[in-house]
């Protein structure tokens, strides 16, 4: 390798950089522009949406690290005209390249470890091949620098040399298979067997809110299944061939594609390990987004990562991004000869290993000294990791997941109330934490368990061959890094900074109250209404209870007990029916009215039920109804209950939509309804129809309901409010940021079935 300054060697060169909007590409672009004045850089950028590639680069150049450069070189536009050129195009279909290129650095790639299998192949194999094909059009003199990853070694163990990975996988066959999978999986996802399984699950949970809601849930689940299946297929295939996952597998196949060019052209393959924030350039701690280890560090700082599967003595191989970039520039300046591809590991593990225990100690010390902002409950407690090994962590996680599933089932059966909702909220929080843990542990276990040593002899040789000035200017000898300094003073502060800014912003921002209802106002020139559900929303009572009251009032003595017994025996079935399908539930209740005279029922309603209903009315609900009225909005009661039950509430509402019992010519109830009960989607449809007829703007209207089965009613209006919601509805409301209110019904009301006894037992 002949010597000379890097700047001189690269003077006048025209370099194409792909992936310039990514982490490494951006750092490389910045460094080339800042430190290698003679270089012209073309960047291959894909237009995104309506933003052209040029605009994306312009946005990139407005970032602080470039803005500083712009001042020296005459502004971003000058920079864009002189030093940087933009080539618009997609990696999957690379446009013709400028004929005067001297070198190409291919940084583009998917950083996700678990891409869907087709995407992995497209990015890492098809994209690379497409670029090389275009490169072949220009000629074999162009130096091609390929950014790969040290982990292409896959599940190999021990020291990995800087050379081709030894395997005999048929790249073409795997590529054809991988690209075909999307279509195959999409087809499979539409098979009846799978769909009926998905539908059964979705309907179990969502049927109450209507079949359409369940159907959209089925489709959501199918799409999710396709995504997960593609990931699973990729991972399985990768593991069956000895790689950790689809990412490293396709990266390795990508190298094979590159090696084809290496037979007749200068090619360098650079394999960084885990790239993290900059040690010094452009400034210590410079990082874009969160990289591999960062979510775990942050979760630990929040006290949410109770244990980790790594062993204390395994090496975790970090390398700062500026070292990677410096190495890339040095490699650029020293092209190998055709037919002898150069391999470089940019890693730290071989000569300056950071063990997992040491890393943990550094992170722990950092958070001990700089904890996250104390929340309402003080600073989070940092878990003490014992690093017990993968298996016991797996056991812990599996047990937690099982417990969570069980708790989730139990909570959906629990009686509703503020406490249940709070439990559900905490359960959901725990659930998403578990999901996070599961995802990251599954993903990273392979890496933290992999006892790999990436030999970097050639990288070191390259470094040592550099002029001393260049060595100072482009340092990439990872042996000089002090991990305590890097982790504790550079990296952790860098990645926690945005979180701390968020915390500070959250503290100053007043959270919108989800329990305070908006004023019942209507925009000028519009007419709005307020729709209320009955059971559980206005009243603490439910259909079974009211039914019992009405029946018991008709019966006497032993008949009363018989009826009570009959109902008690039916309760489990009724509860099941209610959870499954509210319409069927109501029908089975109303069947019991068969043979009763409607006028009698109405008389009983007036005599007995009025008190029963009025005594259970939630005062806050009545206040809200009256507020709407005072604001000039029509109030509408929409209920599946039968009309006689709504009689006491008539003065509060402008319209009451209730179920009518069918009667025969003798005035006896037939046990059926005159029309289908207004439940589920029928409610939404009715609300829309009524609003249309009454010239009501639904977007301005309010809806109040308590149960997931009322979802169509709430979905129909612009201001939905969940009132003492069941768990399913409270979850839905939380997702949609709907207000949730508790309208308690009076508790101390005596609920005896007989009217107040005023005659004495002992006659005085």
């Amino acid at each position: 390798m002949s010597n000379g300054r890097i700047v001189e060697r690269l003077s006048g060169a025209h370099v194409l950089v792909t992936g310039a909007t990514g982490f490494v590409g951006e750092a490389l672009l910045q460094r080339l522009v800042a430190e290698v004045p003679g270089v012209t850089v073309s960047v291959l950028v894909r237009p995104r949406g309506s933003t052209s590639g040029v605009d994306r680069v312009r946005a990139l150049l407005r970032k602080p690290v470039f803005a500083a450069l712009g001042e020296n070189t005459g502004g971003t536009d000058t920079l864009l005209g002189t030093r940087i050129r933009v080539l618009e195009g997609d990696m999957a279909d690379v446009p013709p390249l400028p004929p005067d290129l001297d070198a190409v650095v291919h940084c583009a790639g998917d950083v996700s470890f678990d891409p869907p299998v087709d995407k992995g192949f497209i990015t890492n194999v098809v994209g690379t091949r497409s670029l090389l094909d275009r490169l072949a059009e220009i000629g074999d003199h162009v130096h091609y620098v390929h950014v790969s990853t040290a982990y292409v070694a896959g599940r190999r163990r021990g020291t990995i040399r800087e050379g081709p990975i030894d395997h005999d996988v048929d790249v073409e066959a795997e590529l054809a298979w991988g690209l075909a999978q999307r279509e195959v999986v999409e087809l499979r996802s539409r098979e009846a067997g799978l769909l009926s399984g998905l539908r059964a699950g979705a309907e179990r949970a969502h049927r109450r809110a209507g079949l359409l809601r369940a159907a959209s849930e089925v489709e959501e689940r199918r799409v999710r299944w396709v995504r997960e299946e593609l990931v699973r297929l990729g991972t399985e295939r990768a593991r069956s061939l000895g790689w950790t996952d689809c990412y490293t597998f396709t990266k390795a196949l990508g190298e094979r594609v590159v090696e084809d060019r290496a037979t007749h052209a200068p090619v360098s393959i650079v394999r960084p390990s885990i790239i993290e924030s900059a040690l010094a350039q452009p400034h210590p701690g410079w990082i874009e987004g969160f990289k591999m280890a960062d979510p775990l560090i942050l979760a630990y700082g929040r006290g949410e990562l109770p244990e980790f599967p790594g062993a204390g003595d395994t090496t975790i191989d970090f390398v700062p991004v500026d070292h990677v970039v410096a190495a890339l520039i040095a490699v650029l300046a020293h092209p190998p000869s055709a037919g002898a591809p150069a391999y470089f590991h940019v890693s730290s593990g071989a000569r300056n290993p950071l063990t997992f225990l040491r890393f943990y100690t550094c992170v722990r010390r950092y958070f001990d000294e700089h904890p996250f902002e104390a929340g309402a409950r003080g600073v989070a407690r940092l878990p003490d990791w014992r690093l017990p090994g993968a298996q016991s962590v797996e056991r812990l996680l599996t047990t937690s997941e099982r417990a969570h599933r069980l708790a989730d089932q139990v909570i959906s059966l629990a009686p509703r109330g503020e406490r249940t909702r709070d439990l559900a909220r905490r359960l959901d929080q725990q659930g998403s934490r578990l999901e996070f843990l599961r995802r990251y542990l599954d993903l990273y276990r392979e890496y933290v368990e992999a006892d790999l040593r990436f030999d970097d002899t050639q990288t070191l040789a390259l470094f040592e061959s550099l002029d001393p000035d260049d060595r100072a200017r482009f340092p990439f000898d990872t042996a000089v890094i002090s991990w305590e300094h890097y982790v504790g003073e550079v990296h952790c502060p860098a990645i926690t900074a945005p979180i701390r800014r968020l915390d500070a912003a959250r503290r100053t921002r007043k959270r919108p109250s989800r329990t305070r209802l908006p004023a019942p106002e209507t925009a000028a020139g519009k007419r709005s209404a307020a729709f209320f559900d009955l059971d559980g929303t206005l009243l603490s009572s439910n259909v079974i209870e009211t039914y019992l009251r009405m029946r018991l009032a008709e019966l006497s003595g032993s008949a009363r007990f018989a009826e009570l017994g009959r109902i008690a025996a039916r309760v489990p079935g009724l509860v099941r029916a209610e959870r499954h399908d509210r319409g069927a539930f109501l029908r089975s209740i109303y069947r019991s009215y068969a043979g009763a005279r409607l006028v009698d029922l109405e008389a009983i309603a007036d005599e007995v039920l009025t008190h029963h209903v009025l005594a259970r009315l939630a005062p806050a609900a009545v206040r809200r109804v009256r507020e709407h009225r005072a604001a000039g909005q029509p109030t509408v009661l929409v209920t599946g209950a039968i009309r006689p039950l709504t009689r006491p509430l008539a003065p509060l509402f402008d319209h009451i939509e209730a179920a009518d019992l069918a009667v025969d010519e003798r005035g006896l109830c037939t046990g059926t309804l005159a029309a289908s009960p207004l439940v589920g989607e029928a409610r939404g449809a009715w609300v829309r129809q009524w609003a249309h007829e009454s010239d009501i703007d639904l977007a301005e209207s309010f809806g109040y309901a308590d149960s997931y089965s009322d979802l169509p009613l709430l979905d129909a209006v612009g201001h939905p409010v969940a009132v003492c919601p069941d768990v399913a509805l409270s979850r839905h409301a939380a997702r949609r940021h709907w207000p949730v209110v508790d309208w308690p019904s009076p508790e101390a009301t005596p609920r005896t079935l007989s009217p107040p006894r005023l005659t004495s037992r002992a006659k005085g």
Partner: protein
Amino acid sequence: MSRPGFVLEVDDRTPPMLVHEGEGFRLESFPLGSRVIYPPESLPAIDDVDEAITEALLHPVDADPLPSQLRAGMRLTIAFDDVSLPLPPMRSPDIRQRIIEAVLTMAADAGIDDVELIAANALHRRMTDAELRHVVGERVFRSFHPQGLLTNHDAEDRENLLHVGLTEEGEDVEINRRAAESDLLVYVNINLVPMDGGHKSVPVGLASYRSLRHHHNVRTMVGSHSFMDHERSHLHHSAWRMGRLLAEHLNIFQIETTLDNNVFGARYGFLQKPEWEWSLRDQASMLAMRRGLALAPQRLKHRRFHDLRSAYGLTGIHAGRVEAVHERTIAAVHRQQLVEVQGQSDVLVMGVPFLGPYNVDSTMNPILATCMGLGYYFNSYRGRPVVRRGGAAILYHPLAPQFNQLHHPSYVDFYEEILSETTDPLVIEEKYEKQFATDPWYIHLYRTSHAYHGVHPFYMWYWAAHAMDHVDDVIWVGADRRAAQRLGFRAATTLADALEMASATVGSDPSITYLHNPPHLIADVR
């Protein structure tokens, strides 16, 4: 012979005192030197009630005997006190039943066909059928109720109200039309406390909001010292003016009764005996009751108290012209309830029991508890208040913010919407009274359900206005803190804490008086 009421001074041999607090009670040790006012023991009850009734009807005061006032073809109306009297409700037969039966017998003898019975519930909730049946008895109920001849007064039934005229002070007198247009109106009263009866019966019990607002307001209530003393009560002065106007247009035959102090009966005898006289049996039942209450769920506790029926004995019955009758009635009430007390004290302690006039078979919500303590109990004085001006009132009640939605729908809104804004009676009256009084939903509930009128919680607040004006500090022992704060008061855990808190107002060594009621007492403060 029954023993008169007396004032005990707490010394080191005094046992802990029983203090009521809602649906329960506690035994409290008062600081040495505290005064405890005990009501007189029950006066001897009249043995032959029916004979006393006949006697009163045949030899009325300042009026012709009832039979001579009855003639065929006349229009006769009998009005009677509603469910708010007596407290607790009386065991069957209610004294009103006996009197009404006697009056009806005489009316039947005279051949009168046109008879109606009206519960004089003013703006109180309508009585339920069971309650009406209890008050008038099964026989009367069955003869009159199905035909619609036994009704609750409806103060919002414009058709059935008559504006009789204005008093010399310009006060509207508007009462039930049927009563006003009767040839004879017989009013059957139970004069439980000195506030009741007299011209407070017809002009108030059968009136409308239009008429009531002239005396049920803050100015009148703050000027009534006390409203238990009709001669010094502006409320009563107004009612008396109305009554005199009515007397010019209408023939009223007033029947007033007075009861003894047998509030709790033999079963709970310990509740009306001095603590040091509790027998073993009393102590056992006290212990059993406390244990039971501690374990019982809320609902059971509620039932246990509200099922209580008093075995009141009749101590007097007078009939005839209103004012003459009432003079005798008041004398009888005073005989039963008056206790002479020397001088005022710095602190007045009161235990608010489970029942007041407006929560029969219902919940005593924080507003009703305030009315009971700072209204009725505070005003149970003659001459001067028991506590000095600028002193402190310490009350016992849990003040659980629970409301009976059937009976007190406007109370909930009063509590949530008005008291959260202000607790000043004058501001409340000025800003909100009209809105609540004319609210169609409350009126609907008052007329068709069993709800107190929309304006009723305001009256409860005005009832306490004199006390709020008189004392500088109100502290509730054992109360819900947030509820106490909402009412504009403070809550303490124990009496010692309450006294500590009050020390800023009354110093660290205040004179303390504890009103040991129920049974009812009137402190005659000299």
